[in-house]
């Protein structure tokens, strides 16, 4: 029963992804490859789905898409936008169907460039907004803002899905299978690179901020601990404060079936964090988590956010932009996290640790 449902679901998605080409945009229909010549007796191998996928989208649709996205005045012809919507997986079936025609321009290089640009803008945004955030959380946040799933979602929201030209290439020895969301993510990246190429880095930055960095992400869910009490103790030691001590603020029903404890974790007179729980250890755990979250999730007020890319004045050719840039005041450097639980050099042995025999040798 389950297998039948899965097959049904996969065919349903395949139906949705089947390209629909308006006949007005096709030069000759039916295509000559589909028709069998009168004299020939050999069979014709023609796949209508592949033929439809290899057809370019109608120019009107591409122009409408460009205007919808705000790039209507970027170029005069829709060819660049079409290139941005063409994934490289289409080249193999295209060359087989139209052996005499030149291959269509694909968005691979644009997507790579766009990926680097988006990574740059997202990283500086996250790091400047949350200066004390641990590295692993910064990486997770950047993936959430401009990762492959987000890029695919943004492209779908823009309406690039019907314009995407791609082919579901199967698994080979040299490269894995091409998936729809992978092909779709290349579109939004390529568009960012196009904006950079045709306009300037500031324009690309505002494009990225409007489409990608305006999305809401939950950073609190990305901060996870295995032993927050130990991490907090080491962090407090790094800040040069007194050792953290958990203190009971309120409790009720201690020996009943539903106790509630409210515990605060103090460093000297300062309350670093507070947590509740049905057991003392749970409350202390949550209090330590709260203390570390208060530290990590300290953000720069959005109106005072200054990003380093502000200093990139000018376009690709080094011409200074006409916009006057505000003077750049660098934000405060955050305190680096402790090594414990940072997933950094966890498997690397510190060379300063010496063995007992080495110490004995040194004494002799």
């Amino acid at each position: 029963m389950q297998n039948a449902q899965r097959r049904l679901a996969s065919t349903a998605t395949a139906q949705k992804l089947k390209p629909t080409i308006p006949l007005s945009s096709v030069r000759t229909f039916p295509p000559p490859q589909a028709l069998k010549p009168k004299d020939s007796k050999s069979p014709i191998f023609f796949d209508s789905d592949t033929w439809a996928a290899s057809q370019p989208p109608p120019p009107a649709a591409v122009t409408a898409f460009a205007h919808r996205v705000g790039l209507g005045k970027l170029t005069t012809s829709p060819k660049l936008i079409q290139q941005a919507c063409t994934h490289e997986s289409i080249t193999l079936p295209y060359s087989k169907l139209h052996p005499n025609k030149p291959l269509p321009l694909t968005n691979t290089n644009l997507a790579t460039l766009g990926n680097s640009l988006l990574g740059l803008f997202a990283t500086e945004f996250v790091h400047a907004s949350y200066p004390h955030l641990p590295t692993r959380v910064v990486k997770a946040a950047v993936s959430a803002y401009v990762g492959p799933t987000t890029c695919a979602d943004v492209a779908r929201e823009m309406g690039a899905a019907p314009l995407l030209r791609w082919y579901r290439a199967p698994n080979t020895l040299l490269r894995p299978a091409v998936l729809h969301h992978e092909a779709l993510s290349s579109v939004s990246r390529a568009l960012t690179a196009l904006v950079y190429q045709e306009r300037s880095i500031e324009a690309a930055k505002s494009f990225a901020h409007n489409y990608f960095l305006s999305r809401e992400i939950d950073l609190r869910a990305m901060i996870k601990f295995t032993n927050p009490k130990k991490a907090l103790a080491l962090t407090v030691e790094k800040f040069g404060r007194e050792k953290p001590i958990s203190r009971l603020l309120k409790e009720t029903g201690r020996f009943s079936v539903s106790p509630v404890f409210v515990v605060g974790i103090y460093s000297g007179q300062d309350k670093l964090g507070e947590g509740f729980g049905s057991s003392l250890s749970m409350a202390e755990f949550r209090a330590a988590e709260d203390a570390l979250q208060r530290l990590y999730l300290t953000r720069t007020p959005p109106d005072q956010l200054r990003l380093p890319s502000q200093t990139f004045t000018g376009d690709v050719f080094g011409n200074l932009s006409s916009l006057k840039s505000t003077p750049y005041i660098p934000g405060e450097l955050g305190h680096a996290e402790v090594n414990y639980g940072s997933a950094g050099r966890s498997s690397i042995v510190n060379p300063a640790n010496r063995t007992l025999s080495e110490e004995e040798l040194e004494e002799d």
Partner: protein
Amino acid sequence: MSALARTLRRCYSTRLPTRPPSRVPDPLADVPKLTLEDNVTFIHRPPPTMPSPESFTTSPSSPLLRPPAQPQSTTNPFTDPSLPPVSRPSLIPKKQYPQLTDQAIRSMRDLRHSNPAKWTCTKLAAKFNCAPGFVSLVAGLKSGVWKQRVRNTADLHQRERDKWGEKKALAHKIRAKKREFW
């Protein structure tokens, strides 16, 4: 009623027939109020145990990013009356151990590395008059040896847990699952 019964009965009631009105303190008594125009009073009442979700670099909610409230005081933090009581009084260190010499530490390390099964951390702590945690910190075993011992102990514990009945095993699993949601 007999004369004896009359002497033994109570002549006063010990319970009020109706419930007295509950005395709840006025929640608006000690709360910041602001009088705005048109005789409107703005009352700010955040929940008492709710931590602030907003923390900006200009006014951080973490005391680590602000200068400490008071310089390091000489009073014992575990018995300071101005602060709330410690949540686990059993974890307050009961005695101060003297500092060990380097030679003592070296001999402790040699004993531990020579026979970890015989010279456990607790035994060495009793012998050298120091905290058991200090022994594992200073005379810790090499990673491979320690991991093997941990694995042996874990296997032994798993064998004991396999002897448990259904109910006990289920209760253990429920507690472990609850810990995941802390």
